[in-house]
């Protein structure tokens, strides 16, 4: 995120709190819709800033958002999209790669923290217990990471692509059930992979892992700057 964008995002988040519930709902839907349409993220913040001003002004005049945007606010968004520039393909690709890389790094870090490796390192340093500084990656780990990354991207895709779908408004219960089912599947998967897929595929030295993380972080920063 560029500096200007960061500042604008911060100001927008502050102004968001001034919106009433009705305006907030519209705002979320509009921003989600724009995000699916490959609009530059800085451009989205500029548009968000403008719409926030329009909504707050309307609020102060005691007007409803329906009156400001009309009943079909998808056509308002499409009008905005026609007036603004789309992102370059290179930027979109950078963002996708960055998303995948970040998700992978976070998953590896979480798995490492809960794998018992930390206690082995601490015991080795403070109590002199034997430790070879390698971490065994199991087939279960690889399956879990792959499924989780796919689940996150599918959820994001569904959430952003249904933001303005009129007539098919899903109730909170359906979203809750979807979340609950996903949680059951993930827990079942955690159990299955731990019980049946515990064979180590390869070993990685913790020093190599540290260097890989460092490279991953540098790549994340580079990809972020060009996305």
């Amino acid at each position: 995120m560029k500096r200007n964008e960061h500042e604008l995002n911060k100001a927008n988040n502050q102004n968001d709190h001034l919106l009433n519930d009705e305006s907030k709902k519209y705002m979320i839907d509009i921003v989600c819709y724009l995000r699916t349409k490959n609009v530059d993220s800085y451009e989205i913040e500029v548009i968000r800033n403008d719409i926030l001003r329009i909504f707050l002004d309307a609020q102060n005049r005691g007007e409803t958002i329906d009156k400001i945007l009309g009943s079909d606010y998808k056509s308002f968004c499409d009008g905005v999209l026609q007036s603004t520039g789309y992102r370059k393909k290179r930027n979109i690709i950078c963002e996708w790669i960055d998303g995948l890389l970040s998700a992978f790094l976070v998953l590896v870090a979480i798995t490492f923290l809960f794998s018992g490796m930390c206690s082995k390192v601490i015991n080795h340093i403070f109590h002199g217990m034997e430790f070879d500084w390698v971490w065994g990656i199991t087939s279960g780990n690889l399956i879990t990471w792959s499924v989780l990354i796919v689940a996150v991207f599918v959820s994001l895709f569904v959430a952003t692509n249904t933001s303005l779908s009129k007539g098919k408004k899903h109730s909170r219960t359906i979203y809750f059930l979807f979340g609950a089912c996903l949680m059951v599947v993930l827990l079942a998967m955690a159990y299955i992979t731990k019980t049946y897929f515990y064979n180590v595929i390869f070993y990685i030295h913790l020093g190599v892992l540290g260097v890989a993380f460092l490279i991953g972080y540098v790549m994340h920063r580079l990809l972020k700057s060009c996305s």
Partner: protein
Amino acid sequence: MIPSQMLKGMLEGCILKVINSEETYGYQISQKLKAHGFGDISEGTIYPLLLRLSKGEFVTAIYKDSNVGPKRKYFQITSKGKAELELFEEHWREMENAVNHLFKGGNYETK
């Protein structure tokens, strides 16, 4: 009330005309258009057009304090915008003449 399809092509030029007469903001533009007989044109209709005018550098925006709420975005016409407005007026006159000719004095035959 003027149908929205008919308004579509000329609203941009009309907005430029309003901004040309004085520095103004979205809601005020909609009110001025209403006062001129354009009917209810919401800010939601005007905003995408203002965005396009800004992108094309026909107008520039400055932020000014408002009595209520956050700062307002005021629009000013640029020299490029003025040239575009002249072109719009020229095209509008041509269209106006053609439509008037057709409806008032032109030969109109039906089979």
